[in-house]
């Protein structure tokens, strides 16, 4: 029986034995077989969150998920988000004084964006404490946690407004003096 996985909106079929082996992880399948390199494998043991993708809208660590386990499910990787996704924009644009940027080396960033996506799916207007708790399974060694928290807060408060006002504009409007996004 073929293993069917919907990846970024498109169904893929994998033949067990040829495409998928029982011990193959979802991260391996997505990166090495499909070439979706947005997710990163940094620890390969569920400690850092860099490989986070969404399965049916919820965050999963793809290095801890067997590829076969995704059969019949919908996987969303960062490549599946639109370019103007409010969260991506908010991560990119964070420069509010006092919080630094939301990324530096950028290696952990896709994992943080996807974890934040899942958080906002469940809780569209999280309080700062809820953001802290929701993102505490991810490691950013560059240490951009305050910038990340700020970006998520902004995306949640400005990103989903019905007039389509993006987080970029929202952040520009509310940015304190001195910020030139």
């Amino acid at each position: 029986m073929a293993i069917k996985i919907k990846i970024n909106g498109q169904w893929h079929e994998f033949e067990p034995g040829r495409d998928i082996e029982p011990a193959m992880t979802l991260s391996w399948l997505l990166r090495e077989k499909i070439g979706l390199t947005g997710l990163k494998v940094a620890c390969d043991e569920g400690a850092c969150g860099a490989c986070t993708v969404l399965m049916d809208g919820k965050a999963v660590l793809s290095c801890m998920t067997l590829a076969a386990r995704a059969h019949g499910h919908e996987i969303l990787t960062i490549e599946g988000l639109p370019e103007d996704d409010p969260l991506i924009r908010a991560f990119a644009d964070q420069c509010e004084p006092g919080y630094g940027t939301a990324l530096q080396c950028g290696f952990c960033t896709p994992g943080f964006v996807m974890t934040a996506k899942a958080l906002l799916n469940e809780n569209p207007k999280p309080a700062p404490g809820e953001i802290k708790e929701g993102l505490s399974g991810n490691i950013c060694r560059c240490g951009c946690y305050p910038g990340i928290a700020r970006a998520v807060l902004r995306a949640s408060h400005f990103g989903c407004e019905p007039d389509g006002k993006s987080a970029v504009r929202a952040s520009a409007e509310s940015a304190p003096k001195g910020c030139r996004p």
Partner: protein
Amino acid sequence: MTRTPRPYTPRVARKFIGGYRPRIDALEKAGGKAQFVDDLTLKSRFPGMLYAKVLRSPYAHARIKSIDASRAGQLPGVKAVLTCKDPEVSELLPTSAGWTDGVDTVSYERMMWPHLRDRRVLGDHACWVTDEVGAVVAAESERIAEEALEAIKVEWEILPFVLDPLEAMKPGAPVIHPEIAPRNILPKDAVGGKDVFVDKGDADKGFAEADVVVEAVSVHHNATQSSLDNWCCLVDWKSDKLTVLSNSYEADQSRMHISQMLKVPINKVRVISSYVGGQFGRGDTGDQPFFLFTALLSKKTGRPVKFRHTRRESFHDSRQPAIYTGKAGAKKDGTITTMYFKAIGNSGAYADHTMFALKFAPTEITASALAHIPNVRMESYGVYTNKLPACMMRGVGNSQFNLIFGHVVDMLAEKLSMDPIALALKNFGHQWGGLPDKSLERVLREGAGRIGWRAKRHKPGAGPVYDRVKKRGVGFSFHPGWHAEWQEARRGEIRVRITVNPDCSVTLDAPTVETGTGSSTCNVLGCAEALGFLGIGPGDIVSPHTVDTETGLKDCVQTDSAVSYLQSEVIACAAREVKHRLQEKAAKLMKARPEELDIADGRVYRKAAAGIGMTVRDVFRRGDMLPVVVEMGRPPNAEKTGVPYIANFAEVEVDTSTGKVQVLKLVVINDCGTVMYASGAEAQQIGGQVTGVGEALTEEIIYDEATGVPLNFNWIDYRIPTMADMPDIEPVLLEVWRGAGEYGACGVGEGTVTCTPRAVLNAVYNAIGARIDEIPLKPEKVLKALGLVTE
């Protein structure tokens, strides 16, 4: 905790430099489009690619008596096996993983520690558990490569080992590199000097004459860089040419290393570095043996070979643990007359840059912070043990030194009944300025104000008690900043190239490996600032993030936190030359002499009659349409401008029933000279605290003392702080001191880590009134200090 961020006010208002703005690579990275080396080397991109795996020592100290890899070579899917018995391996020269101090490119002959060539590529001598020794295989998959390693039969001679440097120094201890260090103590070296490497005035006399003397110990441990992007490389050796994709941060040095070790001409080695997922000093200068054995496998198979570390294997280098003793003597009025520091550093299995940390960094500090102390003595000993090798790590040597320095200052202030801020201002500055030092004064005043020093600082252990068992305290530590431009003279010439196209779009070639520091954004901002006369902005400038030794200029090595301004200084010079060339071009068309013309907002005009002129675009269009290309190189400005100061202030809460320390707030203050890129500088100030707090509280490599096996080479047991573990951090950017050149900036990134552990320790002392000499500050140490538990 709420606060209103206070953006800094620039000393000189500039259009682009110093702004709060997104990074130039932010969108690419946020959208997951940035490609790191592991992404660029997928098998789908290199269909014939093989994977390399190297044999690792299961023993802390052992020698390979015999090795039989015949069965491994016969496994299906295994394409090559190399062992220490093969001549192409055994004939490789002994080497060091620290050829340079990380700023310039040097040859094998000129390597920094020629007397410490303690590494053999795939040698037969294993010096720590995990050491890469004996054999390497190339196979169709990593799994097959691992199976092949298991099929290699090794007969080991297990040797006695030693983990503790104090034990290793004793007569009769197991000797690790007898040919280099017969007693495990690294020999004296030309770079760092004698064991007593600073001896100013007369320290003994100074102590004898002092009114007050304090003595302290501080122990810094084996923290590790933990870049998320594990070491990875791909080598493709086709006919006589070798191409390397790597995440080393020093492309030009990597090329030199590979060229010389494998005896291939420099122009036949091409090293390409894309985005790198965090560096933090990892791997010293990139002179890693694995580049060489991966290359040899590619040569042998004729196929591209990829080698990457697992997370466990990426525990590959660390900060030098150091046991420091410090002593200070002062007059009753708080004038410090004498200081003495002694370090015993644990270099681990290989020396690498141990002596850089133990001697070079403290020597720099002597010339700056300790310049006004008449009697100073420092001595250091680097010691081989069978632990993880120690190398460069963010704030090399300074973190360890600050841990004792800030300790002694705090203790001395207490004994003198002085505020440590007053004591610091009375004594520390730099050689080229008087006391009190303006930079230090402002840094400490800002820190004190923002942490609430006056209100919160109380007598040790004598503050209020919260929730029946919790006590709070505040503390700080300070350090001379680095690096001003004059401290980068060793780097040699820095080259950049600016190309102004006929449409006034610009290509900037200012190569430096993009490890996340923000210096590439600084370069683009600096370029836009310097080319302001073209009427362009950062968006009009393209600056490739990839460093390629074949097509680009030499990369400015991503070290010393200095790249953020070093290249911009040269860009400013190059931009002046661009202007000059454009004036020459326009002069022909405008029938004027170049010096009669000026350029502003993209328009060339006569100085005497601003109304007469033409746009720069028209100069190109009516002229030869050739872009203006200016390539320029110059060494850093060696003018001695002194150094600025940095400090961290911490507020902590200690649960006296459990020993748990929680950092409530950190204020991070950097006098930057000039803030090159405010958001990036803040990100470094804030970000460095993850390493600083981790080193202070939770991060530690734990070994099984009976076997030397490291027990926590993973991020579950080696605990890096997450968002939930981090306190509120207030970044404070200042421009008080000024260096040489257009901007007169200094490095920011590394120093942000340096003062954190000591600031936390001093705050803990203020909270509980008991001093703890060792980090990480785990609860059991706090309970022991409080007398609630014994050994």
